[in-house]
């Protein structure tokens, strides 16, 4: 049962490399997705029609099964020479991440209470500074929770990406199943799960830290 611990200890350096690959895929795609998603979420707050369209489009990407989207990415990207490897994996993950990031940004910005916005106007803030100094700090915890969802999801889907040659911890599961080496399979499964849980905890902590002092609930204040 605990043979997988032996396996991890014996192959520690290789597992470290695989973890590095896994995190590289996750963070590159998360970074690109944030760069696209947050501005898009901010832009659509003023336009309800566009918002509905963008969010339902993102929802369609979210609904597509991951291995099928990887499969769809391959023929699209292979004429450019990127059919296998990290590029289709990252581009599929970026598409997946759009929904949690855009939706959370949009909903958070929409749900800021009117009186606060009026107060901001009243002290003479311009549109830009209203956005930067008031709306975004207030919406930040919710936006980060969207990023957290996206990051946890990325870790799960990146483990499937090994089948299109992107590497990562999924390799342990893939090779383990092919060789019927159960220690390897369990090691891969446990490590990927731990990575996802760890990511969830870390970003949860960040979310709490980033919450502005004024809108923290009593419990959070005591906890911090």
């Amino acid at each position, binding site marked *: 049962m605990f043979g997988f611990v032996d396996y991890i200890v014996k192959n520690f350096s290789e597992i470290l490399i695989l973890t590095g690959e896994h995190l590289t895929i996750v963070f590159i795609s998360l970074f690109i997705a944030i760069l696209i998603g947050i501005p898009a979420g901010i832009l659509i707050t003023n336009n309800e029609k566009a918002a509905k369209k963008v969010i339902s489009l993102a929802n*369609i990407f979210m*609904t*597509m*099964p*991951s*291995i*099928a*989207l990887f*499969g*769809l990415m*391959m*023929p699209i990207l*292979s004429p450019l020479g990127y*059919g296998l490897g990290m590029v289709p994996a990252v581009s599929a993950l970026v598409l997946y991440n759009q929904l949690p990031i855009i939706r959370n940004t949009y*909903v958070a910005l*929409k*749900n800021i209470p009117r009186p606060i916005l009026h107060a901001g106007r009243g002290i003479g803030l311009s549109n830009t500074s209203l956005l930067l100094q008031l709306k975004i700090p207030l919406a930040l915890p919710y936006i980060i929770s969207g990023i957290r969802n996206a990051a*946890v999801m990325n*870790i*799960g*889907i990146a*483990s*499937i990406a090994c*089948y*299109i040659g992107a590497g990562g911890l*999924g390799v342990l*599961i*893939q090779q*383990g*199943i092919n060789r019927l080496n*159960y220690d390897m*399979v*369990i090691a*891969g*499964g*446990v490590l*990927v*799960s731990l990575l*996802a*849980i760890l990511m*969830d905890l870390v970003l949860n902590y960040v979310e709490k830290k980033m919450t502005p002092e004024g809108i923290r609930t009593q419990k959070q204040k005591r906890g911090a």
Partner: protein
Amino acid sequence: MNMAFKKFLGVFYGLLLIAVGYLLSQIGFFEFFMDPWEREDYIIKLYEHFELVLYSMSLAIITGVGCGILFSRERFKRFAPYAEYIAGLGQTIPTLAILALSMSLFGIGKTTAIFTLFVISIIPILRNTLVGLKEISPSLIDAAEGLGLRKRDILLKIELPNAMPIIITGIRVAFVINIGTAALGYLIGAGGLGEVIFTGIQVQETNRLLAGCLPVIFSALFIDYLLDILSLVLIPKGLQLQHSSTEGT
């Protein structure tokens, strides 16, 4: 202006469809289906795929909603936070990891795949049932008790209809994840469309790859759409307005 734009959009979609069809025929996508051997094999795979999905999903809906109701009763209420915590934790664990772990416990085969899919899809259903039943305002139940409804009637006529929007969302999420993960069932020897997809990746044959991917994608989108419509039927009229208005904001 707006009407002209809409008409243009229709033409645009039509052209897009024709272009996609032309591209598919260029790479031999339709010839793939013309081959009688391939077609026979393909239909078996399609059947296997939906067999996996339907068995695991019906088990998961029955167990998930049942457990959710059980944990919201007075007698088992103290277990509800634990169940919710476990479901929350389960949602962070990647599907491939669940597949790998259950394969190392139960070996390869169809039963393991159905068990894995069951575990994966029970998590959102259980979680949403728990949340949905918990968030009903106590005053509604008080009112029902005041009317003299029995416990069972309160459950069937007040609690479940009120929780229905959230439960259906859970089932929707579970169904979509289930269809996608069933494609991974091939890895542990359960067959299904995954076999077509993974073979397509390994031999780099685009039309085989697409023949595997497109039904998986479209069935996921279709089920999502279907449950969206089903929710209009199952959610009581009085709640629908409130539901759509909260979703809109």
